[in-house]
C-alpha cells in the first residue's frame, strides 16, 4: 500500500471542501417520497398498458392470421380465399351431412348427366379408362399444332387463380400462344368450399357458347371479390355484356340441359391427380407434366423455352 501523502490529501480535501450545496438547500424528504410513490404509480399504469397493449397486439395478430385467405386446396377443408376464421367456424359447426362430403371438390349437379368418375384400380380386369370429353373450342386458344399444350385448371372463386389470370396468362398468351408455340386450354376445377365457383364456371361456359368466353373470364376474375360475397354474378357481367347476350347467357345457365363441360374437366383433373387450383398441366412430346400451382412468368418462361429448345 502506498504511504498516504498527507499534504496531497489535505490539498485535495481543501478543494473538494469548496463543493458545498447552496446554504439554503434543505432536501425535502416527504416531497421526494411522494414523487417516488407517484412515479411508482405511473410505472404500474405504464406496465399495465404495456401488458394489455401486448395482449391486444397478440390478439390482433391472431385475428389477422385468421382473416388471411386460405390456399386453394381441394383436399383441405379450408376454403380457398375465404378467411381462415370462417373456415374454422364452418369446420367446427357445419352440419354433419356437409362434413361427410367427399374431399374432392366437384359435386355433380343433379340436372347434369353424371360424368364418369375415376375408380381406384380394382382387383380383377382393369376397367377401361374414362374417355374425357374433348374440350369445346371456346376454352382453347392458340395453334392446334403448337408443340406445347398448357392446360390450366382454375376456380373462379380462387384468389390465386385470379392473380394468375390477371398477371401471368396475358404474358403467356402474348409471348407463346399468339406466336404459335403454345396451345392454351382452360379447364374448370371448382372447389367444393367455394359456394359460387361452379356457378361462375357455368356463366363463363355459357358465354363461351356465345363467343364471349374471354371477356367473361376476365370480368369474373377482376370482380371476384365482389360477386364471391353474394353470388350475384350477373350484375358484374352486365358491365361487359350487352343486355341481349346477358339474357342469352342467363337462359343457358338456367337450362338444366346445358352441357357446360365442367364435369369433363373435373374428370381430367382427377386423372392427373390434381387437388388444388391453380394447377398447370404441360403436355409436350406426348407426356403430361402436372405442376401444382402456376409459377411466376419468368420461371414459366424458362421452363417453356427449355422444352422448345429440345425440339
Amino acid at each position, binding site marked *: *500500500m*502506498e504511504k*498516504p*501523502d498527507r499534504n*496531497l*490529501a489535505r*490539498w*485535495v*480535501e481543501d*478543494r*473538494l*471542501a*469548496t*463543493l*458545498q*450545496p*447552496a446554504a*439554503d*438547500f434543505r*432536501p*425535502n*424528504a416527504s*416531497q*421526494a*417520497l411522494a*414523487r*417516488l410513490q407517484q*412515479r*411508482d404509480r405511473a410505472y404500474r399504469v405504464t406496465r399495465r398498458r404495456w401488458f394489455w397493449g401486448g395482449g391486444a397486439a397478440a390478439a390482433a395478430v391472431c385475428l389477422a392470421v385468421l382473416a388471411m385467405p386460405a390456399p386453394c386446396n381441394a383436399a383441405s377443408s379450408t376454403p380457398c380465399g375465404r378467411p381462415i376464421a370462417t373456415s374454422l367456424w364452418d369446420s367446427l359447426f357445419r352440419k354433419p351431412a356437409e362434413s361427410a362430403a367427399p374431399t374432392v371438390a366437384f359435386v355433380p349437379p343433379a340436372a347434369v348427366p353424371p360424368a364418369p368418375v375415376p375408380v381406384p384400380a380394382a382387383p380383377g380386369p382393369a376397367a377401361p379408362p374414362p374417355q374425357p370429353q374433348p374440350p369445346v373450342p371456346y376454352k382453347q386458344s392458340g395453334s392446334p399444332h403448337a408443340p406445347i399444350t398448357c392446360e390450366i385448371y382454375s376456380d373462379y372463386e380462387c384468389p390465386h387463380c385470379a392473380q394468375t389470370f390477371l398477371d401471368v396468362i396475358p404474358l403467356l398468351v402474348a409471348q407463346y400462344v399468339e406466336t404459335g408455340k403454345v396451345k392454351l386450354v382452360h379447364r374448370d376445377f371448382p372447389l367444393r368450399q367455394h359456394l359460387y365457383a361452379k356457378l361462375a364456371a357455368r356463366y363463363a361456359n355459357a358465354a363461351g357458347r356465345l363467343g364471349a368466353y374471354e371477356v367473361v373470364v376476365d370480368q369474373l376474375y377482376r370482380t371476384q371479390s365482389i360477386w364471391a360475397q353474394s353470388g350475384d354474378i350477373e350484375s358484374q357481367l352486365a358491365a361487359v355484356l350487352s343486355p341481349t347476350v346477358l339474357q342469352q347467357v342467363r337462359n343457358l345457365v338456367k337450362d338444366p340441359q346445358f352441357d357446360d363441360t365442367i364435369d369433363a374437366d373435373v374428370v381430367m383433373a382427377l386423372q392427373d391427380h390434381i387437388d388444388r387450383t391453380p394447377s398447370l398441366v404441360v403436355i409436350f412430346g406426348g407426356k403430361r407434366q402436372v405442376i401444382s400451382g402456376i409459377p411466376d412468368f419468368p420461371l414459366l418462361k424458362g421452363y417453356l423455352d427449355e422444352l422448345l429448345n429440345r425440339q
Partner: protein
Amino acid sequence: MEVVATGEPFSFETVFHAHYERIARAIGRIVRDPARAEELAVDVFWKFWRNPQAHGEKAAGWLYRTAIRTALNDLRRQSRTDRHERLSDLVSASSSPEQERAAAEKQEHVRHVLSLLDERQAELLLLRNSGLSYDELASALNLNPASIGTFISRAQQAFRKEYISRYGET
C-alpha cells in the same frame, strides 16, 4: 454510516428516511442546482426501489455509489452541453461580492476537474470526502480493502495534476 440490519425485513421507507437527505446533499455538492440535486436523488432511490439486489447490508454503499455516479454523469453531461451557459452565469454573478464570485469560480474549477477525471477516481474522491471509511469505500466500489489507500492516493495525484495543469496552484 447506517445500514439496514441483517435479518430485519426490508423497509424501503426506513432506508429512504435514513439516507435521503445525505444522498441529496452529496449530489448537491456536485451538481450545484438544488432542484436538480433532488431530482437526481429521487432517481437514485427509484433505481434502488426497482433493484431488489441492492437491498440488504450493502444498501448504504450502493446508494452512495449510485448517487455519486449519477451526479458525476450529470456533471459531465452539463459540462458538454451548456458550458457556455454556465460561464455566462458566472459572468452575470459579477455583481455579487468579489469573494463570493471567487468561491463560485473555485467550485466550478473543482467540478470541471472532477468531470475530467477517470470515473472511478472521481467516485473514490467524492465518496471519501463524504465521510465513507476505507471499508465502506471498498464495499461500495467492489474494491479490495487492502488497496483502497493506493487507489485514493492515485486519485488524489490525478486530481491535483489535472487541477494544476488547468488552474495553477491556487
